[in-house]
């Protein structure tokens, strides 16, 4: 296709046609400890289940899916949509665990070297992805007008790849001005594939974000670092759904709370990095009816906090912090901390040294003291204080099987741990608030039962709505549908405003085709990238929209 005078459609986040009789939706929220599943008809919860997240992820999803299908007696053919939110990527980043070793290329020398890649990153995160040893600033990159800064040093890329062999799981490539001209990134990717093999996941920065080198590079590296974690989750979902005979489109919750097709999410996990918390916010607002306040989603491994204004998470400011790293990825203002029911209470005698960041995760029933294990966790603290009285029906195991182990923990240690947990929650809520006045807090997630809920500083009241323990899973099923459209336009010939309207209409068509209600579809992003190296005034217009499904 030649660059035409009319606006062309370059991309669609599409899904199959929806049939009206298929009204059921299945939603999963895969956390570090538990996998929650719900079966919804419209906005009604027909069945809910919790299973332990398994190391392969699939096992937990299969079990939760089986439970909700069996409990409800639903016909798999009636399932219209399956959606997933997960904190796996966030957890990997905040716990510095399961991250890929990332080969990092920047194409930009002799410019840009004053601020090398990974500058300003937390030390522990740098180390967790392989550190400076895997960073290479290569001579290359482009000028704004399309000239090379210098010709791409292909030999240097080849040599760097050879030195990385066997040491990297994934590669990130960021070239100066690649959003405008991506030749050097594409050429580099080819060299990387030649040396490191076709299977190595490569993230190219021009597919991730727009102009602003340092933030785009950070986003690209983060994407490369969680690509394996996300692939596993998506592939698990696919396998589990197929096994149960469900033939419905699969969606992943994105950072903005809308869903994207699962196949797209595989390569771009950075856009779903806040997937779990984004789903929790939607679920909490729906279940509680509270539209202004804080949402605190406490899982087994982490707690996510969002500040909601008029039913939506507050949009974060200009630079977005993910895992302590500045990025330019659009993301609601969310804060995740490594505190959950399974978080290990590190202590010396009766004094608490640190809460986490490690969690026993799905090994709670093996390693936690309540279950006869050796480690004291947040869960065990609540058990010791008598905060857990009855088992929720979504949990398979009882909350304590070895009370004698709990009774043996010194009372002073329990008290100190409880205070430390309360303080940690208060601090994270305080960080998210924008007013000094107390606000209502919605506590959801399986871990909501095992943390302090009384007299929380900064909070006017703590609410735990019905189905709070599966709030995130509910949120995935009522998420909006995201879609986009792109077009190339020559502003010497066409009117810019008209071109934007035209691309917007096509983005709305795509959202509608994916199941969104047309008149609820709204524009969430308009991006224009100039082809400054071409004659005339050509540019690419990319418009993202989202709309409600129900």
């Amino acid at each position, binding site marked *: 296709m030649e660059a035409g005078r009319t606006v062309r459609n370059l991309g669609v986040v599409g899904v199959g046609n929806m049939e009206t009789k298929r009204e059921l939706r299945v939603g999963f929220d895969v956390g570090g400890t538990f996998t929650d599943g719900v079966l919804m008809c419209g906005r009604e919860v027909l069945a809910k289940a919790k299973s332990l997240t398994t190391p392969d992820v699939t096992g937990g999803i299969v079990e939760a899916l089986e439970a909700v299908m069996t409990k409800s007696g639903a016909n798999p053919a009636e399932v219209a949509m399956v959606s997933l939110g997960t904190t796996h990527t966030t957890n990997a980043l905040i716990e510095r665990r399961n991250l890929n070793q990332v080969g990092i290329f920047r194409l930009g020398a002799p410019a840009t070297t004053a*601020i090398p890649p990974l500058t300003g990153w937390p030390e522990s995160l740098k180390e967790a992805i392989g550190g400076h040893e895997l960073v290479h600033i290569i001579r290359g990159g482009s000028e704004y*007008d399309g000239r090379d800064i210098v010709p791409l040093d292909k030999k240097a890329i080849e040599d760097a790849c050879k030195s990385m062999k066997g040491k990297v799981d994934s590669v990130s490539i960021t070239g100066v001005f690649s959003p405008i001209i991506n030749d050097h990134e594409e050429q580099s990717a080819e060299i990387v594939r030649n040396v490191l093999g076709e299977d190595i996941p490569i993230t190219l920065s021009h597919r991730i974000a727009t102009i602003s*080198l*340092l933030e785009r590079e950070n986003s690209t590296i983060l994407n490369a670092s969680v690509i394996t974690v996300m692939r596993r989750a998506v592939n698990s979902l696919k396998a589990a759904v197929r096994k149960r005979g469900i033939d419905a489109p699969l969606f992943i919750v994105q950072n903005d709370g809308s869903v994207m097709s699962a196949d797209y999410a595989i390569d771009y996990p950075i856009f779903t990095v806040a997937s779990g918390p984004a789903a929790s916010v939607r679920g909490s607002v729906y279940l509680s009816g509270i539209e202004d306040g804080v949402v605190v989603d406490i899982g087994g491994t982490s707690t996510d906090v969002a500040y909601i204004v008029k039913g939506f998470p507050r949009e974060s*400011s200009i630079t977005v912090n993910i895992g302590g790293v500045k990025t330019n990825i659009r993301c609601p203002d969310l804060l995740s901390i490594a505190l959950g029911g399974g978080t290990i209470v590190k202590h010396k005698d009766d004094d608490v040294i640190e809460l986490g960041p490690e969690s026993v995760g799905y090994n709670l029933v093996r390693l936690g003291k309540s279950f006869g294990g050796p480690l004291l966790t947040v869960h065990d603290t609540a058990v010791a204080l008598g905060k857990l009285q009855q088992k929720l029906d979504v949990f398979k195991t009882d909350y304590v099987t070895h009370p004698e182990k709990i009774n043996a923990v010194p009372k002073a240690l329990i008290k100190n741990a409880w205070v430390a947990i309360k303080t940690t929650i208060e601090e994270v809520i305080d960080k998210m608030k924008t007013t000094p006045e107390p606000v209502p807090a919605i506590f959801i997630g399986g871990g909501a039962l095992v943390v302090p809920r009384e007299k929380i500083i900064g909070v006017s009241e703590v609410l735990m709505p019905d189905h709070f323990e599966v709030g995130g899973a509910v949120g995935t099923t009522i998420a909006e549908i995201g879609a986009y459209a792109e077009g190339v336009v020559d502003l010497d010939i066409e009117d810019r405003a008209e071109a934007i309207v035209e691309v917007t209409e096509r983005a709305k068509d795509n959202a509608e085709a994916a199941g969104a209600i047309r008149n609820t579809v709204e*524009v969430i992003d308009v991006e224009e990238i100039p082809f400054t190296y071409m004659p005339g005034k050509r540019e690419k217009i990319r418009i993202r929209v989202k709309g409600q499904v129900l």
Partner: protein
Amino acid sequence: MGVREILRKWGVTDFQVIDKKALSEITLGASILATGGGGDPEIGLLWAYNVVDQGKEILLIDPEAMPDEALAAIAGCLGAALVLTEKPPNGQELFWCYDSLRRYMGKSIEAVVPPEAGGVNTPVPMAVAGAVGIPVIDADGMGRAFPELQMTSFYIHGVSPSPTAAADEKGHVTICDASDALLTERIIRNAAMAYGGISWIAGYPMTGRQLKDTAILRSISMAWDLGKRVFNARRKHLDPIAEAINLTGGYRAFQGKIVDIDREFGAEKTKGFSLGRITVEGTDDFKGRTVVVDFQNEWLNLEIDGEVRCMPPDLICILDPATGEPIRTDIVRYGYRGTVLLIPAHERMRTERGIATFGPRYFGYDRDYIPVERLMESTSG
């Protein structure tokens, strides 16, 4: 000679040591006052941190402490805002400029004065001073940021930008020594375009006496104070905009969501600036109203519902309502929420020659300059 020896020679005992915390506070304040330009504070700060990490001292002194006959110069970046954000420096460019200028003039430059308030153009010159071993003067040439070389209080009060040296990342240096400041601007601007969109520059050599007579004095202290207040507001969940107004005497003119960014793409390579216009739809108390802001690297001219409410050189600052973080012309995106803060320009910028050099007519608006105080007071009530 190191910075401490220079201060000893001048008999200066009163100075402030600028550490990383101070740099972060000054840079935040300066980037707010930069009216949408002045460069990415991420680049400026990380660059400056490197210098501090190398054990170099950045010492800030009051303008009055500088001897009348000693020589100061500016250091910074000139060109298209978008290019700087995408192509950060290698860090040597300004040293090449400084060396070339020193050799060309045959005189040593004993102090650095930042050219303007900005995320890059305030911390980077401070860091250059630290690296070279000379003091930074608590002043700048605008009290805001402006796109062109001659748009300074230095120039309008009689200091020439020449000679100015301009370097790129490959070590190419252009020195322009022209009596006509507008010609100097054109030559340096063309060097920037030839370099790919930006020049790193050192120039405006001036004596201590000239600096005291022409600069916006103690503007770094002002930016520092502003930065401290905004950080404090964030910590205490106070309104950062109110803090900024308390300090600067500005106006909270609008609050809204950015719904269109119409960039004149290509201006970076043909004119050497980032040019365009944004449209902001009102929210909260401003629902139903619309703001249009034109930019040329910096926010220049603001209209509310078709009525002009701020003209250059008065300051248009668009800030994130929750954090006070400035929204810059190079990174502004659809959907950003901003509060518009309008601040009267410094009196040294509002002279007749100032208005001729950077008032509305210079930027192509067919209207006389009216101070923002009058424009805003006519709307209240």
